[in-house]
């Protein structure tokens, strides 16, 4: 039976940039446990000879030709941005992180 700790939930919330209250940590830990239990049931029926599947449709190698297609104009691209500057998307400063 999988159990997910409050600390793990808090860590995940941090990674997902979600503000989660102390009370919610307990709620979500319980709910995530239920989800993990359900997923774990799949393991009970998964046999060695069944490869892990990520897609329901048995398709492979769906490719596009390397040919330019029209996209958006800059005006269209920036139209819904909350803020722009110098033809770029303007975002708040990024604290204590560096790419």
């Amino acid at each position, binding site marked *: 039976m999988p159990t997910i700790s409050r600390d793990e939930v808090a860590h995940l919330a941090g990674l997902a940039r979600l503000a989660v209250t102390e009370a919610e940590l307990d709620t979500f830990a319980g709910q995530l446990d239920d989800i993990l239990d359900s997923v774990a049931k799949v393991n009970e029926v998964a046999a060695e000879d069944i490869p892990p599947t990520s897609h329901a449709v048995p398709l492979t190698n769906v490719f596009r030709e390397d040919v*330019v297609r029209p*996209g958006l104009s800059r005006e269209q691209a920036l139209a819904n941005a909350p803020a722009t500057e110098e033809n770029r998307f303007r975002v708040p400063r990024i604290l204590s992180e560096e790419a």
Partner: protein
Amino acid sequence: MTAVAEIMDYDEVLERFDPVLGLEVHVELSTDTKMFCGCPNFFGSDPNTQVCPVCLGMPGALPVVNGKAVESAIRIGLALNCEVAEQCRFARKNYFYPDMPKNFQTSQYDEPIVFEGHLDVVLDDGETFRVGIERAHMEEDTGKSLHVGGADGRIHGAEHSLLDYNRAGVPLIEIVTKPITGAGHRAPEVARAYVTALRDLLRSMHVSDVRMDQGSLRCDANVSLSPKGSGEFGTRTETKNVNSLRSVERAVRYEMRRHAAVLASGGEIVQETRHFDESTASTSSGRPKETAEDYRYFPEPDLVPIAPSQEWVEQLRTTLPELPWQRRRRVQQDWQLSDEELRDLVNAGALDLVAATVDAGASPAEARSWWVAYLSQQANERGVDLASLPITPEQVARVVELVGEGTLTHKLARQVVDGVLAGKGDPDEVVAAEGIEVVSDDSALQSAIDEALAAQPDVADKIRGGKVQAAGAIVGAVMKATQGQADAKRVRELVLASCGQE
């Protein structure tokens, strides 16, 4: 500001530790379009003019894989002696950063398209060092941030950032080495030589521009130290922003020395990314490294798996061009070079240039002489790569041809090359514009010779008296008078004839 880190003397580092390297090289493919959408993949356009709903991560937009990029990935794998996966998938790498409009990067995780290969790297002294390749996988590049308000465009102290998504979604191949051990004191050199060899390989395959200065080839250098003989790997750091071949070598060397100082004083290395500063050749602390779990990778539901058939892989294998090491071997044979001559050619970065000059009609010896001697010297003086000199192999071949025809002497040829380097046009244009030509008109030469003989009557008498070696002084005077434009051999013949010594 960060305090200057303690660093240990390099020789002492090696007495106490064995370096372990891991190099991650990101290569932007030079496809016409992006990895998952039909936006143009072109460097240097105006901001946000090569974007669409897919690469801007708009809701409902669906990616479709660029087949050409997959081909390039497989071909790169084959050139690196890798195995090709029978089936592989894309995965989402989740993290929040404004240069990723989707809030995840489409990458590959546990199923890279190619894996388990190697690249043999030739070091400066001609020794070969084999670097193991762990894997190469396909992913997409991020957008470009411009940090406003901080010092020198860096993120620290910036008030806000501006994003250009032209680069977001550009096809990227990440090539990861196995841990490189046993390089000892040559570790920094091995790192540089590996990135150089990889660059040359990718360039010969025409899959990428491989311009480190423009970011189409980028190297992250992982360095750790293992106490000598212990066989245990230490904690590693990952140095980013290493934007030139020279910087790769310097960054590795600096991190080895910094790690050693920290470990020797009883400290611990923090696993983190570090930022390389070209101006000081040192690194500074970046962000703590997230663990793979923190990226919460999962299979990309919007893209079906890729399953390259054996036929396809074999067909792609036949499209591989002559690879740099094959070319080196062939050139050495064709041009009859010693190992040393070949090494000098390679180290000068002249091999491809000489080969192209030979292809354009010059003899290997002439072509080699121009690039390795005069042009290398010009490149040094200008502080640029040989390949960046503003002269093409075709132009050098034309100069060689003009010398062969007798239109130019070697001395004049240099003047013409200087003209080409100065942006005065093709060799023929420089010859015409500057009036550079061998004076072979005998009557013009004869009057110069008569003048020289008249000016030095004692020398003239000696020649007439049979001392033919004295003719050199007259030849020299004539060459001076014609500003080097005469054919010295012809002048000598005429001088002797004038003095009755034929």
